[in-house]
């Protein structure tokens, strides 16, 4: 029987990392990495930042050169979407079929299928000039449209939306951000940080509308012309950028009968409900990496890489749970936000530094235990908290508020609770 090796569906950060980690672990079986985009695996974060602003070639964003993949006998298939798949019995082997009918057998399977942008549901949402931002092709289109645009409306005040707004503003466009919730980035940061970003964008000339719902998009000759809000406000727009979150791709997992709950459910070793099949990255929900509790979906490069390493270990028959401290960053204008840990479930926070001076951090606590930091232009604070969390240490909330004392000097072992 011919050896089919490992099939990895989804050729982005997580999928590529599984392939690389398998080779690093000494796996010599064939590896096939299939991606539906036409491009070799590349970094996504710059798409809403430097790449969108222009001047960066996609080749510079490649995660690995094609030569590197070839040298390691990692077979990359681009421009092919897997439409259906089935396991032989309970697996691990099985067969996948592309949209074009190509058949790909496998001995082991990894799903790194990612997520798709949530579509705006409003009349006029299908007009030309209404764009999304997930792929390099999306970014290239947006870059083109943006060069000729005057008025940009960003729907969604999360990270992608705000980063795109910052780029548009830097290019001198009139920019309005429309957010349905009562504050920006509400899912990820405390109200004090939301308010900081609202003010920071406003200071730079971006109009921010929270508690705002889009009722419809008006067009002329098939191209968007304006956005109307539920309070009757009419905002002229020749370009609309929609960034209202993503939906994990679970279709293939459901074909295999894998448990899904707002994403493909995996354990700390990136194994799905079928222990033979692994999944990693934006398509998954997993136990909290630091506490092991609950189910969290973490959309970040760090998580994709950490989970992929755990997945590769599981495929190799090893046990290397993903217990890495989550971290994340967002660049808007000259503001560098760095996040370490997960602040969900915090019951207390401490603000440290100067919000007006655009350099500060917010430390988050749950039951007096340090769980996360949001640091804006404060890399020392970010790094200190990340280090503390990595060591299982803490920083007392009362001491952290004094910005004259570096956080690194305040790291102490975690108190053992009674």
């Amino acid at each position, binding site marked *: 029987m011919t050896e089919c090796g490992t099939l990895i569906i989804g050729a982005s950060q997580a999928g590529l990392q599984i392939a690389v980690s398998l080779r690093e672990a000494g796996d010599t079986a064939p590896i096939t990495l299939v991606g539906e985009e036409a491009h070799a695996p590349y970094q996504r974060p710059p798409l809403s930042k430097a790449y969108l602003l222009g001047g960066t070639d996609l080749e510079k964003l490649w995660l690995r050169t094609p030569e590197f993949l070839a040298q390691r006998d990692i077979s990359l298939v681009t421009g092919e979407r897997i439409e259906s798949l089935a396991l032989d019995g309970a697996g691990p082997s099985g067969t996948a079929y592309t949209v074009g009918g190509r058949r790909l057998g496998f001995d082991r399977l990894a799903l790194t299928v990612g997520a798709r942008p949530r579509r705006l549901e409003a009349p006029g949402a299908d007009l030309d000039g209404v764009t999304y931002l997930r792929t390099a092709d999306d970014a290239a289109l947006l870059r083109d449209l943006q060069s000729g645009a005057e008025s940009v409306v960003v729907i969604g005040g999360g990270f992608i939306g705000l980063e795109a707004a910052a780029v548009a503003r830097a290019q001198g466009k009139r920019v309005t951000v429309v957010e349905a919730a009562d504050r920006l980035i509400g899912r990820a940061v405390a109200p004090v940080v939301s308010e900081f970003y609202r003010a920071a964008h406003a200071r730079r000339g971006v109009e921010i509308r929270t508690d705002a719902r889009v009722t419809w998009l008006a067009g002329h000759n098939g191209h968007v012309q304006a956005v109307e809000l539920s309070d009757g406000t009419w905002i002229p727009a020749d370009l609309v950028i929609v960034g209202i979150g993503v939906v994990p791709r679970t279709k293939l997992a459901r074909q295999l009968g894998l448990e899904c709950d707002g994403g493909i459910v995996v354990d700390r070793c990136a194994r799905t409900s079928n222990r033979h099949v692994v999944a990693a990255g934006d398509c998954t929900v997993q136990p909290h990496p630091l506490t092991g509790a609950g189910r969290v979906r973490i959309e970040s*490069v760090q998580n994709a*890489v950490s989970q992929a390493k755990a997945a590769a270990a599981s495929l190799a028959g090893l046990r290397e749970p993903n217990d890495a401290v989550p971290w994340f*960053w967002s660049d808007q204008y000259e503001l*560098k936000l760095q996040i370490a840990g997960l602040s969900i479930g915090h019951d207390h926070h401490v603000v440290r530094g100067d919000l007006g001076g655009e350099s500060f951090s917010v430390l988050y606590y749950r039951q007096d235990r340090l769980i996360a930091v949001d640091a804006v232009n404060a890399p*020392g604070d970010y790094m200190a908290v990340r*280090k503390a969390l990595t060591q299982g240490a803490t920083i007392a909330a009362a001491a952290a508020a004094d910005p004259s004392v570096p956080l690194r000097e305040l790291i102490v072992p975690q108190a053992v609770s009674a």
Partner: protein
Amino acid sequence: MPKVVFISLDGAAHVVDAQVGESVMAVAVRNGIPGIIGECGGNCSCATCHVYVDEEHAAGVGTAGDMEDDLLDLGVADRRDNSRLSCQIRVTDELDGLTVRVPEEQ
């Protein structure tokens, strides 16, 4: 096209082509140089692209900025005078032949 030389722990030299303007980290990661991770893609956020710059090129690459300095202080295992985060070193024609050593751990 300038070249960058990476010396890995076992002493092996990896000579790779680089494009002017890109970072030394990007060159390393794309070519799969062992020991340089660059998880954040060059955003000075992760401190996983630490290298030691060979004396000959120390002046040419300059010194670490404030943000990098903080990350080096807290984020790397064995900081030395010639420690840099390679994502913060831009390749130039003048730096052709730049030689950096990969640390024991990131």
